[in-house]
């Protein structure tokens, strides 16, 4: 019935499909290149390599997705990882019996940091970019002061988490995939999950519908930090010890890139974890292919940069019509609701005037 249909606009496939298409493309191109080089991208070795690489970033990006969906951002994940790897390793102190304790402590600490992030952003209305950047610095100082280098020792049993694999599937990746599935369920099946989209879409609409936007935001940040914590545990398992220097490995920006690469809008309200997984895999495949092809390490950076921009540019093309006029930084932008009414998401009268 014409009255509900908008003027026929070319409906292309959803962004998630896009991303997986992109992933497929990368895989095919990669495979061809590797084949030309006389290798096999899907040989066990390379497969394992790809999956292993994806597991760590996978956890971080998974968490980052929640925050970004809410229109926020978390730049402290790298530091949380480092901290958690150390706390985990030092708590376990080589004693298999203490593994559960280590895990619990780590998750609790991580959750605590996430809680702080969330509160600073939602209650103190500090722009998430600065809030989490600051949190990162705070943790960094603590790390540099307290740990003069790698510390603690992870019992061999827990190292399995980092090294064992079922056929070509590393356990860490398996766990990551489980987490991803749970994450997807959480977004698609839990109220809070639903509300994250709402908060990211428009804090005002969310509020008018009786959603406690603050809580949702905090939850997202907690989940993000916890995911980073698990990444920290994985680090510990892989390293056999905790390492502070992890924070210099740029997982914060990488995870954001992966999420956006996964088709989630940086200003929130649209996207999902399925896409993020694809984003992570794309980056992992790139790394592996670059490695097999012996690409100069610096050239890798160039390519990564180009790929990220190009991909996001392609997604953007499909949304220019609706998104072009959307205020940047969205809800997270100034810590408060959107600056001014968005054409396709108006807010109650009287709102605009008070920004």
């Amino acid at each position, binding site marked *: 019935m014409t009255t*509900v249909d*908008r003027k026929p606009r070319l409906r292309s496939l959803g962004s998630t499909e896009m991303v997986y298409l992109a992933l497929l493309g990368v895989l095919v191109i990669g495979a061809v290149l590797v084949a030309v080089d006389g290798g096999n991208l899907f040989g066990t070795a390379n497969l394992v390599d790809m999956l292993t690489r994806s597991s760590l970033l996978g956890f971080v990006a998974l968490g980052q997705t929640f925050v970004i969906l809410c229109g926020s951002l978390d730049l402290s994940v790298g530091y949380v990882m480092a901290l958690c790897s150390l706390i985990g390793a030092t708590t376990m102190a080589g004693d298999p019996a203490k593994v559960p304790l280590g895990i619990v402590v780590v998750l609790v600490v991580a959750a605590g940091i996430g809680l702080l992030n969330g509160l600073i952003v939602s209650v103190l209305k500090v722009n998430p970019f600065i809030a989490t950047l600051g949190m990162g610095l705070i943790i960094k100082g603590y790390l540099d002061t307290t740990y003069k280098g790698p510390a603690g020792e992870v019992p061999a049993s827990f190292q399995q988490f980092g090294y064992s694999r079922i056929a070509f599937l590393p356990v860490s990746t398996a766990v990551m995939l489980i987490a991803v599935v749970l994450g997807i*369920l959480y977004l698609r099946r839990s109220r809070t999950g639903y509300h994250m989209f*709402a908060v990211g*879409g428009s804090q005002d*609409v969310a509020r008018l519908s*009786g959603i406690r936007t603050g809580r949702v935001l905090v939850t997202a940040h907690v989940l993000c930090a916890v995911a980073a914590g698990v990444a920290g545990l994985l680090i510990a398992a892989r390293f056999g010890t905790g390492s502070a220097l992890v924070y210099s490995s740029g997982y914060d920006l990488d995870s954001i890139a992966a999420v956006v690469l996964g088709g989630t809008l940086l200003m929130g309200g649209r996207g999902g974890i399925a896409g993020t997984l694809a984003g992570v895999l794309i980056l992992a495949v790139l790394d592996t292919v670059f490695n097999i092809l012996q690409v100069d390490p610096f050239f890798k950076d160039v390519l990564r940069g180009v790929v990220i921009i190009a991909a996001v540019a392609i997604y953007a093309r499909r949304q220019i019509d609706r998104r072009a006029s959307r205020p940047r930084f969205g809800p997270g932008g100034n810590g408060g609701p959107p600056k*001014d009414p968005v054409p396709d*998401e108006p807010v*109650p009268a009287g709102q605009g005037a008070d920004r």
Partner: protein
Amino acid sequence: MAVAPLTETVLRMHGIQKSFLGVQVLHGIDLELRAGEVHALMGENGAGKSTLMKVLAGVYQADAGTIELAGREVAFAHPLQAQQAGVSTVFQEFNLLPERTVAENVFLGREPRRRGMVDADRMNADTAALLDDLGLSSIAPRRRVSTLSVAGQQIVEIVKALSYDARIISMDEPTAALAEEEVELLYGLVRMLRERGVAILYVSHRLKEIFDLSDRVTVLKDGALVDTVPTEDITPDELVRKMVGRPITSFFPDKLPETSLGDTRLRISGGGNEQLDGIDLEVRAGEIVTLAGLQGSGRTEIAHALFGVARFTRGTVEVDGKRVSPRSARQAVRAGLALVTEDRKAEGLALNQSVAANARLVLDAVLPRQSGRRAKQIPGILSSLELVSRGGDQEVRFLSGGNQQKVVLAKWLATDPAVIVLDEPTRGIDVGAKQKVYTLMRELSARGVAILMISSELQEVIGMADRIVVLRDGRIAGELPAGTDEEAVMQVATGQVTS
């Protein structure tokens, strides 16, 4: 018209007062809603309709006065409380998440759960049920809202309101954004709800709607209650008089004598694009032409076409005999056009910037070299508009709607344009400011500026116009002389007759 049994009173608002920044907006309003009635709330913009609705909706809290629901006194601190109490509101602006599905929007904030998980199936089913119930099964619950037409989104709004099984639904200009045929759809909905004993508070400017739909009408003026009467017992003219408080004619400045009309300043011949077709339009110096027609009939589209937003792909545009084809607002301004946009906050002002900065924005953007010199006249223009502000440094977001509009006008006057297009120039501003705008328009046309005014308020369409051009479905449906009556305009607009 089927009048439902007017029995129990479901809502009683008494002595509602509300003021913002010391400005009294509502002076003790009394309002009574009965089950199964459509109660129209009339009044000019700024009369306090929206504020009253928002008080009822729990968006604002009254400074004084009481609200009784079915005899029980209530106080809503939050819209949710109102909704849970059975009072739903369909705001003028949509409250939907375009990226989410219909069902997700309808049940936002209270998604049904099974074993702790959101029960999407049930949610979709329930939504489908609600839609079927209203005979709107054509809208799929799983559809993303951004893919729906304006009417579709409006419907989702109403369904959302209904889904709280509301006993009271207030609608703020629900037809404002609807195209003609869509309006009928809405009528049907409203009548159906009435049949079911829902009390509907219906705010509209369109006399036609009022008389088509409502059982009783309450008139507000300048934040005070004028009267509440059964719709049958009142004629349109009386109603208008109650609203305006004086005969319309005196409300509007006198027209200029025919003789004073100069040569054509704006000429559109055969203009057309995706939304428009065969637009032939002329505005002469000293002439005010008003564009009437329902929302979506192509009024704003013409303005946008002139301003290069969605430009004419067919036909020609001439300003002072010079052919122009603006690709952008910038070129339009260069060509001597000015556009006072419809949505002041979203399209008209940079709210965090100062009065002065906003007032000279066009100069700065389009004529940077002259802006320094030209801006000197701005204070003069502002004071001639009787702008009330704490000086040019004050950020416009702190100004009242009327004063904000004055800043927008000043911004355009500073460019002394040949043609000014005003899209709903008096929307949401108080009577005083309104009259100021009217006189200003006259002064301008007296100075030889060609004025094209777009408005949904028939009385102002008629009151201001030297000629009325009525649009329908993106075409010019007819042209009426000054002094036509509202019915005539409506008939042409709705295609009941073609003149």
